[in-house]
């Protein structure tokens, strides 16, 4: 197990390193010039040059990269265009999005897996068909439309939930959940739809497996047969799907935060792009890439816990 983890972590480090290069080059390849953005109305070439010089933008790209990455390794992501430390900005914004993503995964997983299991067990019956149809709708509906509809119904008409904004959990726990409930539902809908379909087919597979017949032949209750023997093997698929859906979750968070006016990481990303704020954008994308890799590493670990056969390939076993 130790060796397995070490190899996975090593591979993850390499991915993070490579993505830092891609991030750096990619951002510089974007059209637009930060000096123009910073200089505002002033297009005097001397001012432009001074701005470029003060940010080190007049140096060759490799030099810029090494300077940036060596500071980043020490936790210093530089100053953004408002002279605020990028690292600090990210640290204040990231937890909001992490909470939103966590709630979305929680909502998406519980609804998706439960519906998938029920659909598989009651295959061909009404509950199967309605779950499958609902999932199709959930997959097809765009985030922004669903978000707006929910705001109209639950905030404007029914006054059950606030339409937008954010309060921190520490300041006001209930208010925090009230503000995040709709965004989490919107963000979790796509995930739950994908998970429902994948869980259903994985469960259909394992329900027809020989070991499920063995479990029945042992006299186990149907709850044990489905909930233990069949589900445990389907969870391998579910974990993989959650890992794969992470990219969709990140981009979904950008849109969802925009609709519900949540000052999270997604909004920060969008602002950084709009303002051509190189240091901020670099920091944001690097953190996002690292987060993606870390979560995938966690998925691998969860995977090996669920499937003992994977663990062995890493350990020395006779």
């Amino acid at each position, binding site marked *: 197990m130790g060796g397995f983890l070490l190899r996975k972590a090593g591979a993850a480090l390499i991915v993070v390193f490579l993505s830092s290069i891609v991030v750096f080059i990619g951002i510089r390849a974007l059209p637009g010039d930060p000096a123009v953005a910073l200089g505002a109305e002033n297009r005097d070439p001397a001012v432009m040059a001074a701005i470029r010089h003060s940010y080190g933008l007049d140096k060759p790209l490799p030099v810029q990269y090494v300077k940036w990455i060596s500071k980043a390794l020490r936790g210093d992501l530089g100053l953004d265009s408002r002279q605020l430390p990028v690292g600090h900005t990210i640290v204040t914004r990231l937890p909001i999005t992490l909470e939103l993503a966590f709630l979305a995964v929680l909502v998406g997983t519980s609804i998706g897996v439960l519906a998938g299991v029920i659909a598989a067990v009651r295959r061909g019956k009404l509950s199967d068909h309605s779950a499958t149809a609902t999932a199709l709708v959930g997959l097809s509906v765009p985030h922004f439309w669903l978000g707006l509809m929910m705001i109209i119904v639950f905030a404007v008409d029914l006054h059950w939930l606030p339409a937008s904004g954010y309060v921190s959990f520490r300041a006001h726990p209930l208010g925090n959940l009230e503000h995040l409930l709709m965004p989490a539902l919107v963000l979790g809908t796509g995930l739950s739809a994908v998970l429902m379909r994948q869980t259903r087919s994985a469960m259909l597979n394992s329900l027809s497996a020989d070991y499920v017949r063995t479990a029945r*032949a*042992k006299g*186990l209750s149907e709850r044990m047969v489905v909930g233990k023997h069949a589900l*445990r*093997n389907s969870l391998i698929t579910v974990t993989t799907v959650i890992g794969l859906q992470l990219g969709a979750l990140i981009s979904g968070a950008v849109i969802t935060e925009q609709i519900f006016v949540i000052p999270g990481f997604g909004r920060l990303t969008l602002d950084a792009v709009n303002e051509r704020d190189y240091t901020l954008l670099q920091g944001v994308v690097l953190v996002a890439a690292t987060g993606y890799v870390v979560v995938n590493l966690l998925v691998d670990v969860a995977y090996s816990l669920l*499937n*003992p056969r994977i663990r062995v390939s890493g350990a020395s076993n006779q």
Partner: protein
Amino acid sequence: MSLLDVEGLSVRFDTDDGPVHAVDQLSFTLADGEVLGVVGESGCGKSVSFMSLLRLLPETASVSGTARFDGIDLLAASNARLRAIRGRRIAFVFQEPMTSLNPAFKVGNQIGEVLRRHLSLSRADARRRTIELLDLVRIPSPERRVDEYPHQLSGGMRQRVMIAMALACDPKILIADEPTTALDVTIQAGILDLMRDIRERLGTAIVLITHNLGVVADVADRVLVMYAGRKVEEAPVHDLFARPQHPYTVGLLGAVPRPGSGRLQEIPGRVPSLAELPKACAFAPRCPRADELSHSQVPELREIEPRHFVACFHPGPNAEVAA
């Protein structure tokens, strides 16, 4: 009185291509502590018959008939009643030890859950008993194996785990469906040896489903031969081998390899499809003894000598089947 008394068992599968009659009017009995061999080619309905007794078939199967066990009809029993019998009084060992164990759980967990379910043992007691069971089925260093996953065991060991699981609650009947088919020959002998040992030490009645007559000759007391969903012959094992009556049995015996007997004989033709029940002897198209009668009527089962039954219009031990 017999331990298990099955009468008129029929199993039909409703498939997209219409119904398939897998088992037709099968009747047999099983005595306490008896080893019954059930023989036939793949698809003759031998596995399906026994799985239907514990309702282990997919939902597309419809089962009729009666199966008396301990005063109740298994085929009419409620699900709850049946669950209390499965694994506790009647246990199954399946053909594929590779896929019949759950890859995600330790073998100790999979054996232990039977003990916890039926005997309400505590976790610690179940573990202790599981190690005893692994020892009983002759798995070396059971204290270590109990914490291993199925993929860490060899095929033979996995089948021993399946047997240990089946024996966990000391069942009255052990149904072993091709328990040795997926295993190497040397390992097969060990498993069969273990079966004999179980019968002698625990007095468990065993149903041994196989297509291998050698296995039957080794272990069984009585043999039931099936063809195309019907019972064609039934006899004590020595009578069957000494004086087979049904041309199909004669053919099967001719196909068992023996040293110095030269070329193996085969039964010409193929097993018929079971989409339609023939109003004739199902073996007739492949049978050299078949005449007009065989092609127009279903032969009744007759007792040709004490405890020796055959469903054939022209029974006899001569080997002209393979001509």
